[in-house]
């Protein structure tokens, strides 16, 4: 089945089984390797993307459900000023170790800050609770989020 949707700002149409996982379509039909498969069961968040601005785990999304929707992956986010702020903040806070989880975290962090420019510790933890990280113990990722909130203050409120 052919499905049209908006991907990282562009209208696209692609032929795929409507029951296939959005994750596979993004990685295999579009080569978007920043979307990672850590589990395929919705547990780890490494496959997170934005669907109409909301975080979703692309390994759980049947491709049919993106018809007419807008998907933004880390590759799309990368072009934005918001991304640059998050990137710099994660770099400075030492938030990255093996990095397999990181693109997924960036998606969750972006969605969080867009909705809540000044989150508290607990709210940050809630927002990233669907992203597993086995390396960092999370605290330095949370430090990165706080830094990004501060550095991008105007941007998030816009």
């Amino acid at each position, binding site marked *: 089945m052919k499905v049209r949707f908006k991907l990282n700002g562009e209208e696209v149409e692609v032929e795929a089984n409507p029951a296939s996982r959005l994750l596979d379509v993004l990685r295999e039909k579009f080569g*978007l*390797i*920043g*979307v*990672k*498969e*850590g*589990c*395929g*069961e919705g*547990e*780890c968040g*490494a496959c997170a993307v934005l669907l109409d601005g909301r975080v979703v785990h692309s390994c759980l999304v049947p491709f049919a459900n993106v018809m007419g929707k807008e998907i933004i*992956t*880390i*590759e799309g986010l*990368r072009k934005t000023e918001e991304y640059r702020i*998050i*990137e710099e903040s*994660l*770099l*400075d806070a*030492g938030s*990255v*170790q*093996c*990095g*397999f*989880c*990181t*693109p997924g975290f*960036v998606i969750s962090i972006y969605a969080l800050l867009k909705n809540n420019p000044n989150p508290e510790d607990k709210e*940050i*933890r*809630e927002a*990233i*609770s*669907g*992203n*597993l*990280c*086995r*390396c*960092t*113990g*999370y*605290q*330095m*990722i*949370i430090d990165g989020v706080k830094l990004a909130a501060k550095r991008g203050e105007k941007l998030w409120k816009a």
Partner: protein
Amino acid sequence: MRDISKPVRRFDASEKIAGVARFVDDHYEEGMLYGKIVRSERVRAKIKAIKIPELPEGYHVISAKDIPGKNRIKMIFDDWPFLAEDVVNYFGEPILLVVGPEREKVYEISESIEIEYEDIPAILSVEEALLNKKPPIYGENNLFADYFFEKGDVENAFSEADEVIEEEFKTGFQEHIYLEPQGMIAKYNNGRIEVFGSMQCPFYVKNALIEEFDTKPDKIRVVQTTTGGGFGGKEEYPSQIAGIAALGAYKTGKTVKLVYDRAEDVEFTTKRHPSHIRIKGAVKNGKVIGIEVEIILNAGSYAGLSSVVLQRGMFAATGAYSIPNVRVIGKAVATNIVPMGAFRGFGAPQSIFAIETFMNHVAKRLGRDPVEFKLSHRYRKGDTTATGGLLRNEVRLPEIVNRVLSMSDYYSKKKEKKEGKKLYGIGFSMFLHGCGFTGNGEEILKSIARLKKRKDNKVEILISNVDMGQGPQTTLRKVVAEVLGIPYEDVIYENPDTDRVPDSGPTVASRTAMIVGGLLYRAAKELKEKWVDGEEIVVEKQYRHPEYIKWDQEKFKGDAYPEYSWGANVIEVEVDPITYEIDVKKAYAVFDLGTPLDRKIIEGQIHGGMLQGIGYATLEVMEQKDGRFMQRTITDYIVPTALDAPLFETDLVSQPYEHGPFGAKCAGELTFVGAAPAVCAAVEDALQIDLYEIPIRPEKLLTIMEKKNESEV
């Protein structure tokens, strides 16, 4: 001079954040084949017959018979096959590899293969293995290793004692859950095998393939792809996947990709060894004067690295305590479950949990404060360890302990417990970790590190150690740049490729910074002297144990490690009085790991290591039933999320090691070992009970509390 400890941005982080770093699954090649392993559906059986359906063109089924060389993964023992031959020893053991161009078809074929088995009575527990009533899995008695060492006169200590206290401890399985599942890509071209994948030890893989294909070293090339976490799980296990993938490539002449599904990874890769540890202590005049520790590890179905895991466990048996009379007994026992393997701490976490909890219990029995009681037994400079090794360097435990106590406000919190809906508890642990390989490991390995200065004056690090998240891409660059006085950016360090790098040993045992970093440090010093602008210069350094180190591998006598790192943890918990769920609120840690090569990277190691240790003590339940794990997916095997993680507060005390680069010692594993006993002590404090087992499940606490309440009524 720049401050080596001052944090810099990690060199590998930008591309990881952006999602452009290529992990093994991100590599794709036109015409590539996909592999799927067909696994045993029996716990222990003879393979009677294999029925393979007619295969469509381009699809192949590969078995042990296709292996040109030896069907054993090169490790310490020669018992673990790449693919099972006539017997299977655990549920999920690889038997066949199916490869082909379409995954769907590969899957279909693998599902339609029929294997006929004849069951052999399976050994489902350590107890059963030790009873030895069923045909043994290994040797005559199911023991992969059976060790013993002694110091002083233990019997005399027991006979002199005022009191003899004996307790038994248990620790469970633990799964690594590195976030990137295991995977390999193999190619076969002109008689050469090339393997790319997620791994810690390129030369382990290379050496395994040399034997598998009975070929010369120059016919095998192994390249590490950016690796999404390892924690020991990618130490020995990748050799098996690489061997299987390479066999596929060898048979078909095509590139073969073999990447695990998470469910395969959870159920069928190595785990941390569960343990039973019995400690018998002789107490006289308020001191433990003698101790007998018996450590029994469930090693699973093949020997793997279990003998060395057991050794490290045994050498850590007395923890950070100087006890004059010591007897340590250890057994690594074969059972029919996946082989247990390397996991951060490598046998030490089990022992440290047991000795720390034992010392707490003894202190309580004697009416002593556990911190003070432990400190009174602590190792000091000049003491000999359990194996009779000499502690040559300052042991700054008093400073470490004082700092963690004041940071956490331990005593006032312990005295005036927070009142609330939850039951509050606080716990303490202190511990050590031996740096680098156990015993004469480094001596045998004789690692080589190389620096190559290019004509453009950039310097390349050529070593076989990998960055799997722990940071050597950054720390080792800093070491070299610092010695040479050049910008960090002028040092190059690519993922190791065995065609280009010497064997500087595996990325294990917290040895990369201290041992390999030490070699690079010395190489850089030499390079600095030889430096000529615009010329290519190569410098190599080979490891030599410091002269003063003495070790007898037969008797386990002498310096088990060249150096030690030290630490103390305090953990605060709240236990729900109705459900007994444990909420770990705060974790404090002070470590002496020598000079930190980057404070942020070390902090990351501390948080990550401690959270893994907290998970090990609480949420991470893996149980075995009828030879299979009950928790087979990442949905059922639970690791902490951001909401389960405590707040961390950390500090460092730095006693440098003269042979470590800028005085660095070991860090990676040390951060793991103290968390579980501190959590356990905190829960004991909250509920006023004694515990002997991790993970501490609410299910268990409920029954303990029911008994306690009954006996109090």
